[in-house]
């Protein structure tokens, strides 16, 4: 499902830059990030902590905490520019057109309200429905996300649900107004592996049935491998490689992607040593000139230390690496 060539992308991000002004100067957390998501497509965004993947997601849904701000770039949803909308207008986009699922299901729900009240409120904010009708829809949503005895459970409070069930409720909330896009930021990271499998299967099924596109932000390559159609690998605030999931996993082009794939232990393959990328990702205050990966890269040469590579076609994917030009 390569949809990079699709005529009308659902989400188009161009040159996104997120900055944090600090006393010691401006930190650029997301640097010139561009990508598209086609309707119904699942785009995985991977990277290690501090790579800027969550901030990219937050920028799209307009939830960057001040003093952080989108310094430049354009975010278009179905052709309409949404990055410069006023707060109230963005509130209506969020929920109605873009749903959000966050890592910790306990903090995404209000502990003082029953989940039914939260669902009904969300539904009525975005859809022209009366109380009874909204409640009926809420029960149907809960049933759809696999909550047993939904008609009874709807009057329970978040603390009465287990972690996995809470994440199902959060997904029901995200789907409440039938959005075209869901931004899911580490939706399974807080969950045990058996529950994780349930939530992934659920997200996949719902998005297929509703035709919802997903931007799936996670550090877990395994989750991406079985969920995403395309994947973007982020490093130090930039996308270093983007392409169809199978190609990025099995034929990665950027040395960082190669190292990342090799460093993941597998349950089927036996290896004496894991591929090791020495060092750590640079801090935002000390991003090296040229390619940000050059101090850790086994193949770095002079050009890498001076000039920053742009995303260029490399095999089946796009990679930001000078090696691919040779």
């Amino acid at each position, binding site marked *: 499902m390569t949809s990079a060539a699709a005529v009308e992308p659902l989400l188009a991000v161009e040159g996104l830059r997120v900055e944090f002004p600090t006393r010691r100067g401006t930190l650029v957390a997301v640097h010139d990030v561009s990508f598209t998501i086609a309707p119904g497509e699942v785009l995985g965004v991977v990277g290690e902590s501090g790579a800027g993947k969550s901030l990219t997601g937050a920028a799209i849904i307009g939830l960057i905490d001040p003093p952080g701000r989108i310094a430049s770039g354009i975010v278009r949803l179905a052709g309409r520019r949404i990055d410069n909308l006023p707060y109230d207008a963005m509130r209506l986009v969020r929920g109605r057109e873009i749903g959000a699922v966050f890592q910790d299901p306990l903090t995404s729900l209000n502990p003082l309200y029953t989940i039914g009240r939260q669902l009904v409120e969300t539904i009525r904010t975005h859809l022209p429905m009366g109380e009874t009708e909204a409640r009926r829809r809420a029960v149907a949503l809960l049933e759809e996300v696999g909550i047993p005895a939904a008609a009874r459970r709807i009057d329970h409070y978040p603390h009465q649900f287990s972690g996995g069930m809470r994440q199902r409720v959060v997904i029901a909330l995200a789907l409440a107004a039938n959005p075209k896009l869901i931004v899911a930021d580490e939706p399974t990271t807080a969950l045990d592996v058996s529950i994780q499998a349930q939530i992934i299967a659920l997200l996949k099924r719902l998005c297929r049935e509703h035709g919802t596109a997903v931007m799936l932000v996670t550090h877990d390559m395994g989750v991406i491998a079985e969920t995403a159609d395309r994947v973007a690998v982020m490093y130090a605030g930039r996308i270093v490689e983007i392409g169809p999931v199978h190609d990025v996993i*099995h034929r990665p082009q950027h040395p960082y992607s190669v190292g990342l794939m090799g460093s993941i232990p597998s349950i089927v393959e*036996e290896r004496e040593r894991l591929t090791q990328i020495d060092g*750590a990702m640079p801090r935002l205050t000390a991003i090296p000139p040229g390619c940000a990966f050059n101090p850790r890269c086994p193949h770095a040469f002079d050009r890498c230390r001076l000039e920053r590579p742009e995303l260029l076609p490399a095999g089946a994917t796009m990679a930001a690496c000078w090696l691919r030009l040779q």
Partner: protein
Amino acid sequence: MSPDNTLLELRNIARYFDVSPPWLDRILERRGRVTLKAVDGIDLAIRKGETVGLVGESGCGKSTVARLIVGLYAPTRGSIRYDGVTIAGEGVTGDARALRLARRGMQMIFQDPYASLNPRWRVADIVAEPLRAHAPATPRTELDERVVALLLQVGLAAADGAKYPHQFSGGQRQRISIARALSTNPHFLVCDEPTSALDVSVQAQVLNLMRDLSRTLGLTYLFISHNLAVVHHIADRVGVMYLGRIVELAPTRELFANPQHPYTRMLLDAVPDLEMTGKSRVAVAGEVPNPLDPPAGCTFHPRCPYANERCRREVPKLRAVGGDAHGEAACHAVEEGRLPPRAIPLAVA
């Protein structure tokens, strides 16, 4: 499996926690005491030089096992023997010197490298602390030399000893934790999720380091993790825990290629793997039950597709299964041979 080779032995070890509400609440609400059986009867022998992995989902009691071994908790029942000395539980040795020596031989590495290092201490002091505790007579110069050697051994620089923990990244902090653990020349390391707080590329560095150290120093590890792939990579044998008990214990290759217990099979099917692009895995029904009120009989029976009347009544014991080469599983269905072959065997790459 000669018994002489055993370094650590857990015999029917259990740890209960009293999690009752306060006395007055109990009286007013007419409720009794509440006991959490975090670990409920575990037998495990670890041989010299091997790495035993312990996996399970949150709340299964794997960290409690780690804490029991290093003496952070006292066992409610059972005993722990280390290198021929009973160090905890029933029949604990009265010989304080032997106990101290045994304790010196084992160290622990914790999950969170941010919380387990004192932020106000310099790295050199952190690394030297176990030595100061166990060998207070060590001269200052010898201590300094030892610290430098340890820092170099874990891939840090000698000059790093003068820095504070906040000057290091997560992976480097975990290296400091490892250096501290190695300072008393231990034979046995208990590692409780040592890489769970780290990014994958840094996790690979730490796992490679731990493997190198086990080879060069002949260390024995108990490696606790919720990540099956990590355990598959590092362990020689793996124990799978569920609600305070070990449900399967087998050599790593056997356990992953030919899992016996339905819970192990379920866990393996649930692990996302890079090889699984585009394939969908079998989602498992149900969740871990409340450990305060575990089901009777086999605690896995409410989620198990093969459960019958016996499973609901009788607690299964760990028994040898699947021939000599395999290991042990605690399952009536396996024992009675009514478990079908594994439904979806993973393609071995």
